[in-house]
């Protein structure tokens, strides 16, 4: 006899939810987004004995009051989709606060099984938990586990399967809300009984939400409810409020905590003196008033060294050689031996292999960057970075959590934009995504290096550094403007848990890195694949057929757009065309200029300067570099913006506004520079 059940995994952030999910499903889960929003949805199938189980990972939340997107998703999933069992993971070493969510989950009226995680940590800290008593007091089964060591998983699943066929085993004990509120609840339940819309849910839960004046529930009841029962309820609850000191929400929260405190006092023995844990000791140094910033700077430098020097670039060269020489060589030979037409050969070798390869060379960097981010996140250090940098970030109206993606942008904007997922406030997140491309990524460096060497010999370092700085300054200014206009928000308050430091698990890290790298490969790969073919076509053809570069559609396009760049000092078709193609990948600007000017792929700085001397001088070269720094991001980043904002509107907006910002800044540089006679 086999059966199928669906379980939902709910729990606080940092309670080990991801670890448990990975332990249950391994890498056999798929990651998507919840319908209509960009919050990650993970789902996986696995088998326990003869039961097929579908596990759905709900977003990590501290509560179920539907004020944040994550909480809404978690609540609506449980209420509307009715999973067979809700598995609530609770951090045993932080049990008091974790149970706040448990109590709310139990209130939803669905069967709950608690997985009491990190029993080892709790034990080592001197907590003595009477699991049986705790289970009796809460009214739901509790299974102690250590998710990171896969202990207790099988017992947990036994319990889950048992509960799925006998739901009365996990009904849960209700919170006693005190006489006045309980009367009110009973009254509400009575009036709700006649409401067909409410009967779908647990009536006590709905009654409580009505008292809290939960907007979603009120709307639901009003809409399908012709009698005035809900109005009556609203009026009555208002009347009751006057007789109470606090508002209802507060009162309800208060009672829930009382309920928890009383349960804890009967079932958990806390250590008499709570000594400093190893994590506390580490934190004394890592976020020390004086050492905190230098240590943070060192760690960031370490991440960059690791990503771009130590590992990344070694592979980068190898992959470049692989695509540029080995694979192109094979393909050319193979196609020649098959007598393939020249155009087909060119499409495959120059267009597809060249284009896709040009982006894939960054894969090792991206994997290294993801690896570093994942380690920093899982160890708990990322939360400390937000703690350390919040003051600075607040100056541009963002939270400390937005700092990491900004730094990562110096490496590559695409993963950096994915890194904004840690921001809770949707407006903050959009602002952080939209200003991220101003952080000068490593692909823009070849452009600066070549132009600086050609036009500013001896002053290259200064010029390049000034461009990085310009990017940061523009990001700050634009960020300020955004926060004052488009993304006005009272902002989520910066109230954040600093989880204990933990040693990341190898499996967890590998799964995270793989998930993210796969996303980059698939999405960026498909986009770039298409774009490469288009580029190949417009550079090799005109409307009558194959054509020289100067007569190609690309050149014509360049000529159309060249006047646009005249006020910026570089209104020639070559510059215009290379900028357009640079949208594919920023470093392409340099290689294309070399090709367009007939210098071959690898032009020396001296030859480059000589050739470009006719159309560029120091001032226009600088304006050009500034434009390359700021203008429309490459397709990889556009793809990341589309994916992370889940909106074509914001994606198109980012493309257009960045072009405008770049145009204005480069124009100012050129015009003011010309005025003062540079």
């Amino acid at each position, binding site marked *: 006899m086999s059966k199928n059940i669906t379980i939902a995994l709910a729990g606080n952030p940092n309670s080990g939810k991801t670890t448990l999910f990975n332990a249950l499903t391994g890498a056999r889960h798929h990651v998507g987004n919840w319908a209509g929003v960009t919050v990650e949805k993970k789902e996986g199938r696995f088998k326990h004995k003869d039961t097929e189980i579908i596990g759905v990972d709900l977003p990590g939340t*501290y*509560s179920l*009051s539907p*004020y944040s997107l994550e909480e809404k998703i978690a609540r609506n999933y449980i209420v509307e989709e009715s999973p067979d069992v809700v598995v609530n993971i609770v951090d045993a*070493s*932080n049990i*008091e*606060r974790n149970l*706040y969510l448990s109590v709310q989950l139990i209130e939803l009226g669905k069967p709950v099984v608690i997985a009491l995680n990190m029993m080892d940590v709790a034990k080592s800290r001197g907590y003595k938990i009477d699991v049986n008593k705790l289970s009796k007091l809460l009214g739901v089964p509790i299974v102690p586990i250590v998710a990171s060591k896969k202990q207790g998983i099988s017992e947990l699943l036994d319990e889950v399967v048992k509960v799925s066929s006998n739901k009365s085993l996990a009904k849960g004990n209700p919170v006693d809300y005190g006489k006045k509120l309980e009367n009110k609840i009973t009254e509400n339940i009575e009036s709700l009984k006649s409401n067909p819309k409410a009967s779908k849910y647990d009536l006590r839960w709905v009654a409580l939400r009505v008292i809290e004046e939960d907007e979603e529930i009120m709307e639901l009841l009003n809409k399908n409810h012709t009698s005035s029962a809900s109005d009556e309820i609203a009026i009555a609850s208002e009347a009751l409020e006057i007789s109470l000191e606090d508002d209802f*929400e*507060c009162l309800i*929260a*208060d009672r829930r*905590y009382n309920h928890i405190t009383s349960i804890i006092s009967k079932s958990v023995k*806390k250590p008499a003196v*709570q000594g400093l844990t190893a994590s506390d000791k580490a*934190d004394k140094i890592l*976020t*020390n*008033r*004086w050492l*905190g*910033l230098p240590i943070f700077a060192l760690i960031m430098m370490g991440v960059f060294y690791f990503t771009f020097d130590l590992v990344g670039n070694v592979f980068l060269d190898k992959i470049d050689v692989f695509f540029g020489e080995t694979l192109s060589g094979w393909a050319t030979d193979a196609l020649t031996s098959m007598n393939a037409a020249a155009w087909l050969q060119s499409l495959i070798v120059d267009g597809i292999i060249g284009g896709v390869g040009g982006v894939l060379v960054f894969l090792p960097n991206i994997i290294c960057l993801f690896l570093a981010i994942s380690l920093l996140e899982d160890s708990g250090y990322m*939360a400390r970075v*937000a*703690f*350390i*940098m*919040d*003051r*600075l970030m*607040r100056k541009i109206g963002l939270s*400390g959590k937005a700092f990491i993606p900004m730094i990562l942008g110096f490496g590559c904007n695409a993963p950096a934009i994915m890194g904004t997922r840690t921001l809770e406030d949707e407006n903050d997140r959009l602002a952080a995504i939209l200003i991220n491309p101003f952080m000068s990524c490593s692909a823009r460096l070849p452009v600066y290096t070549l132009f600086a060497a050609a036009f500013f010999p001896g002053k290259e370092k200064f010029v390049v550094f000034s461009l990085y700085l310009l990017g940061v300054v523009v990001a700050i200014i634009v960020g300020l403007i955004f926060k004052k206009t488009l993304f006005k928000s*009272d902002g*989520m*308050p*910066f*109230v*954040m*848990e*600093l*989880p*204990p430091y933990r040693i990341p698990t190898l499996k967890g890290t590998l799964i995270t890195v793989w998930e993210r790298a796969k996303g980059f490969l698939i999405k960026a790969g498909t986009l770039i694949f298409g774009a490469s073919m288009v580029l190949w076509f417009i550079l090799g053809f005109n409307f009558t057929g194959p054509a020289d570069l100067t007569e190609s559609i690309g050149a014509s396009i360049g000529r159309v757009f060249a006047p646009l760049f005249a006020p910026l000092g570089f209104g020639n078709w070559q510059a215009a065309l290379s900028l357009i193609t640079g949208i594919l990948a920023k470093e392409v600007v340099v290689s294309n200029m070399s090709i367009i000017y007939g210098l071959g792929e690898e032009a020396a700085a001296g030859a480059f300067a000589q050739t470009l001397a006719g159309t560029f001088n120091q001032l226009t070269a600088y304006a050009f570099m500034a434009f390359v720094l700021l203008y429309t991001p490459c397709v990889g980043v556009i793809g990341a913006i589309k994916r992370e904002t889940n909106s074509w509107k914001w994606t198109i907006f980012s493309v257009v506004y960045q072009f405008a910002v770049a145009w204005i800044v480069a124009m100012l540089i050129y015009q003011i520079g010309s005025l003062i006679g540079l």
Partner: protein
Amino acid sequence: MIRTLKDLAPGASGKVMMVKGKGAIKRRFMDMGVIKGTEINVEKVAPLGDPIEVKIKGYSLTLRKEDAQNIVIE
């Protein structure tokens, strides 16, 4: 003179008497266990002078001084 969490120096502790304010911030505090009667202990101030780190219900929480002003201490 009302004392708030902001006035507590690192190392000092107190009991939450009241959480002022409305909306998101108050709810957030409730969710994180900052409610009437809870013991709260100031651990440290961030290197740049803000935010602060506190211990409450056995875990570490960080919040800005501006928001800490809403938490009245006995």
